[in-house]
């Protein structure tokens, strides 16, 4: 475990050196993400110029949710997506073999090796919005709320991680799996609002097959003090199930890749 942590830190260090080479890119990227976030906040403010509450969410709670949205999206694009995209490329080029020959857990090295540290800007800006929302909420945060928030956030990451792992694993059998990432990307956009405002089909999609809606809404509910304990429990259970399934599916895919079944 310690060894894996050290390795993970090393991955980060290597990527950091790379990103720092292109400082001008960094600035341009931060600027871009700032534009995206400012306009998104403006959109929320326009909606709230007509009402005090959107489906029971106050403007402060809504800001928290938007902040969490950018934190979650940023974290996923920071860590999981780059590795998954790289994996698909490696399967296509046949260089995945090298990763599998390393004396180390294959799922670890394949899903966490590459990252796009520039996305940290997104996470940081998201945190600023979320904190602004919390300040506007007025009521102080209880330790229990913070704990529930952290648990919900971590659980959300696990859910999305599992989804991406399953998509990545499919590339052992199918060639054009990046199409699934396109679908995923299209739905991510919808997580900027609480899932409960959506019509049934979209709400169900965002809470099950593409659980990005849950990953954003539930942590935001925890901070906004409107989280039902059973939602969190349900989400935890789902994450455990997803973790077990995706791990099994990955091993299954690997076995088929190395031809154990033939």
């Amino acid at each position, binding site marked *: 475990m310690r*060894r894996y942590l*050290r*390795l993970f830190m*090393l*991955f980060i260090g*290597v*990527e950091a*050196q*790379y990103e720092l080479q292109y400082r001008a890119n960094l600035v341009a990227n931060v600027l871009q993400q700032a534009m995206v976030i400012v306009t998104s906040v403006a959109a929320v403010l326009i909606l709230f110029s007509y009402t005090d509450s959107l489906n029971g969410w106050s403007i402060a709670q809504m800001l928290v949710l938007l902040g969490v949205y950018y934190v979650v999206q940023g974290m996923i694009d920071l860590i999981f997506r780059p590795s998954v995209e790289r994996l698909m490329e490696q399967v296509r*080029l*046949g*260089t995945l*073999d*090298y990763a*599998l*020959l*390393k*004396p*180390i857990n294959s799922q670890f*090295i394949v899903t966490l090796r*590459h990252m796009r540290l520039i996305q940290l800007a997104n996470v940081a800006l998201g945190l600023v919005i979320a904190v602004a929302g919390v300040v506007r909420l007025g009521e102080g945060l209880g330790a229990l709320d913070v704990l529930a928030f952290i648990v919900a956030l971590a659980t959300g990451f696990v859910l999305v991680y599992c989804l991406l792992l399953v998509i990545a694993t499919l590339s052992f059998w199918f060639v054009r799996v990046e199409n699934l990432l396109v679908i995923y990307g299209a739905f991510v956009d919808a997580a900027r609002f609480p899932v409960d405002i959506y019509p049934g089909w979209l709400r169900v999609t965002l809470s099950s097959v593409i659980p990005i809606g849950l990953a954003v809404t539930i942590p935001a509910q925890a901070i906004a003090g409107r989280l039902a304990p059973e939602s969190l429990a349900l989400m935890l259970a789902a994450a455990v199930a997803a973790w077990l399934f995706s791990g099994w599916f990955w091993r299954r895919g690997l*076995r088929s890749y*190395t*031809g*154990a079944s*033939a």
Partner: protein
Amino acid sequence: MTRAIIEVDGLTKTFRVAERSEGVGASMRALVRRRYKDVPAVAGISFRIEAGEIVGFLGPNGAGKTTTLKALSGLLHPSGGTARVLGHVPWKRENAYLRQMTLLMGNRSQLVWDIPAADSFRVLQEIYGIPEAAYQRTLGELTELLDLAPLLHKPVRGLSLGERMKVEFAAGLLHLPRVAFLDEPTIGLDVSMQGRIRQFVAELNQRHGVTILLTSHYMADVVALCKRVLVIHRGKLLYDGGLSALAARLAPYKLIGVTLRDGETDGELSRYGEIDKRGEGRVTLRVPRDQAAVTTARVVHDLGDRLADLSLGDPPIEDVIDKVFTTESVA
């Protein structure tokens, strides 16, 4: 019987391939019931390799070389037979085994292109758990042997093909494996870079006793490095033995080169043997191995003063191998 480093016994790998059907109707039927065909890639091969050997693995494309290497490095689960490398069953992929072997594929890169090789090496050090002192020692040695110093701190994408291959070699050998599988390590490189790599492989084998099994399309690699070769064709082992005996075994003829001062008239030389080729005044004759000496003597006797030059030798190994693979007669 002592344990060899690599022991392969009846290794078999059969791929199941969906049969391609033509026409819309056939495609529709295939959706419902797919028909599979078993394609044997490796059909029961056995061999042993002792510690410190360099063995060349020869065969045309699709003969089963890469499949065998992949099975021995643990990437492929065979359909039958057994194999032990360093006492491990490769496809169990135990960390203890993976730490002691390497697989290098000349046409596939393992380095991250955007970052300098030195950074990738650090990651490898951590992955293989190489102690700092050993790491510095090996890196220093590889740097010296491969002349890496100017390459380590440039992003890999900026290196030429030859430079990249040297860095790839270093990446694959940082943990000083005891067994190295090299799949076409010199592919696409120019002649002088091929020479460098060859020299390096020989050094590695001499200094550290690394056991090496290598495939190559370039016979020069094999001739320079391997005393012993395995020839594989259509998944079967055709030959296992010394390189020089290979020519005798697979090519039951020798070549006599004749150059006449006044040139050949009316194809007169064809009575001594089959004409292999003619060019620039020189005629090459192909004669059965057991008659080579007698025929040479006859040429000298008959043509005497007219001879400008005469030579007797084995056919080039490429041609021998080529002939075997195209005629597919099992020797």
